[in-house]
């Protein structure tokens, strides 16, 4: 495993310069994805699911950006937009300074080498009729790359990098456990030596002990290969463990974006605080105390077809005032490197101090 850096496939990637750590690798501005809802024979559009509704963020080279949120907040759609598996409705995605927002199939092919994805469900993301060898070598075939020493040797090297045995080359996915399958998916993502890896819930389908193995593997690979990760997850403990910076999403928007320490020590958005307080803590002695601190959000996430006016969180927020229902809070830095979209943030000065009348909910 130690020599993995020296043996990278030379085929197509050797000429590209490695981006320096800390440089902006991916820049997203005003990104939107609306899925149309059609009705009737003529497929007349009657509405839209505002899955992602205006995202602005950057991913710096060498870092791990964590994205958290409840189901239905658009985090997976975001992952598919930045890997360009979906066509954005609006906004732009720049990868290494190049606009990739509306590239076609041919234009995207070189990009696929640099941006790879690890999927959530290791059962449905591997073709059951292909051998592991065929699955992991597919990227080479599609890109027309012949790695040094041949495809088979390279695939076997990749399998050993992710902690599988090279003899697994001719086996089928059903012969593996969930954790091993996830490793196959990781090997496939690493095949072309990508710069950015987007992992959509990479460990949520796995048992806790296997989850820790995969988290450690992702960590090792980042250090060895200098990868940049965007990790999408709903588990706040996992996100804290793996991320350098974290974006919290709610109903298609980022409500808080900051580095790990500030998010977990001084969360500013009420939604982030509620999420953090809801995490079950594996410590029976804290049970009593925790019960008192817990902020229980009422109800479910509203429908993204018809999001609430103003601040989208106002329907469930205990701090909401009149202004929250009418004016949408912008995502602004309230401390160094700590962006929040809230009129009445925690741990920071109130943005709308004049408005104190609590919101009356119907």
């Amino acid at each position, binding site marked *: 495993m130690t020599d993995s850096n020296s043996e990278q496939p030379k085929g197509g990637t050797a000429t590209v310069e490695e981006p320096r750590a800390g440089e902006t690798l991916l820049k997203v501005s005003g990104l939107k994805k609306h899925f149309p809802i059609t009705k009737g024979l003529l497929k007349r559009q009657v509405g839209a699911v505002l899955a992602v509704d205006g995202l602005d963020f950057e991913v710096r080279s060498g870092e791990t950006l964590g994205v958290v949120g*409840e*189901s239905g907040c658009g985090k997976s759609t975001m992952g598919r937009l930045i890997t360009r598996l979906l066509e954005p409705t609006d906004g732009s995605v720049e990868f290494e300074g190049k606009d990739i927002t509306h590239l076609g199939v041919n234009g995207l092919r070189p990009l696929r080498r640099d941006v790879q994805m690890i999927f959530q469900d290791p059962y449905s993301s591997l073709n059951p009729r292909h051998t592991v060898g065929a699955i992991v070598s597919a990227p080479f075939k599609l890109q027309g790359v012949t790695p040094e020493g041949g495809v088979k040797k390279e695939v076997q090297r990749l399998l050993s990098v992710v902690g599988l045995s090279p003899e697994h080359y001719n086996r089928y996915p059903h012969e593996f*456990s*969930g*954790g*091993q399958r996830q490793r196959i998916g990781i090997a496939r993502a690493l095949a072309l030596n990508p710069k950015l890896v987007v992992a959509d819930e990479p460990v949520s389908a796995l*048992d*806790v*002990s*296997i*989850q*820790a*193995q995969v*988290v*450690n593997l992702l*960590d090792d690979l980042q250090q060895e290969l200098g990868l940049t990760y965007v990790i999408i997850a*709903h*588990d*706040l*403990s*996992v996100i*804290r*463990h793996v991320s350098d910076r974290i974006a919290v999403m709610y109903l298609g928007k980022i409500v808080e974006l900051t580095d*790990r320490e500030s998010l*977990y020590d001084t969360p500013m958005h009420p939604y982030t605080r*509620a*999420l*953090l*307080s*809801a*995490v*079950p*803590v*594996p*410590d*029976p*002695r*804290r*049970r009593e105390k*925790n019960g008192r601190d*817990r902020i*229980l*959000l009422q*109800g*479910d996430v509203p429908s993204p077809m018809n999001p609430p006016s103003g601040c989208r969180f106002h329907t469930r927020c205990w701090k909401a005032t009149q202004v929250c229902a009418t004016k949408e809070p912008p995502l602004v830095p309230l401390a160094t490197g700590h962006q929040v979209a809230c009129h009445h943030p925690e741990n920071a000065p109130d943005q709308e101090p004049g408005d104190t009348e609590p919101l009356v909910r119907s």
Partner: protein
Amino acid sequence: MTDQPAEKPEEQKADAVPEPADTAAADATDAADAADGTVDQAEQDAQAAGGKVADTAPGEPVLDKKPASAFLEVRDLRIHFPTQDGLVKSVDGLSFSLEKGQTLGIVGESGSGKSVTSLGIMGLHTVGQYGRQRPKLSGEIWLNGQELLTADPDEVRKLRGREISMIFQDPLSALHPFFTIGHQIVEAYRVHHDVDKKKARARAVELLDRVGIPEPAKRVDSFPHEFSGGMRQRAMIAMSLANNPELLIADEPTTALDVTVQAQILDLIRDLQKEFGSAVIIITHDLGVVAELSDDILVMYGGRCVEYGTAEEVFYEPQHPYTWGLLGSMPRIDRERTDRLSPVKGSPPSLINVPEGCAFNPRCPYADVPKGGITRTRRPELRETKPGHLSACHMDQADRERIWNEEIAPKL
């Protein structure tokens, strides 16, 4: 698995219980005899030392078919599935007890036998349908002074839903998509209560209201697909509470849910338990959920209990290396962030071919601490490390305490 010793030590077989098939057949007759108190089965079983068996010194288990004193008592439960590949020993000698108003957490990886145990208590293994072979069950399950495994299936059927009920993991597949939520709750209620539809419907509305579904009178006519995940789980809970059960089994009740909804559901289960005073078994792989709810914790590995104790003991003085591994695998939000997690290496064992000796030995970093390779030849018995806290490990108490205090605890 290649490092397993090939030969099976004979003494292991000698003190093992008779074949499950024999016991199952023998159970019926024994049960009748046991009522007269004539049969003493003390020597029949040498492995049933699990759980809090009353007045049983560790190492000398007694299986006397006496009615249990506890509300629920499971003794030496074995559930084996005959398959084409071999006998799957999903649960292999599990014992525990539970009082009313208490919560027992069962933790373990997938395939450790947690769910099979719960289905066994519910009596859902007895029917061999779709041409499957019947699983082989043995042991005893005492609920409220009644033995369930040897009881008439019709009797158990009457208990199911009324005395014992279950919250399943995936509400979308546990609810019938074709019937309204109300219909399904009404059905569960009318099976056990002789009431008219109107009264049953009122009960359904009342239950939906109790579990926090908004506008219950309207929502009672909704179909499962019209509910969100959290609401479906609430509806499931409402259904399982329809008959005020005394034992509630929750099998991964929050695994499919978001943290915010998970917190709501856990609070709901806690409140309902306070209100109805029922006994709760919560089955999960999430140690956080267990810590939130449980009084006692049972850690399962390879179909057996490897550690049993109060929540406090299991989290603060865990005795088994597998429990250490589980604790080390979890990223902790309440502690300083560690650079690396310390997971259990390898993957869970096949239940057809459970490793010889201690089932955990191929994955255990301390398998060589006890002398003479005993971990690979002899299965460790569940022993008391202190009153009420049991652990199945060959290591000496001193070694375990040293390793926990010096090597494991500082890294968590």
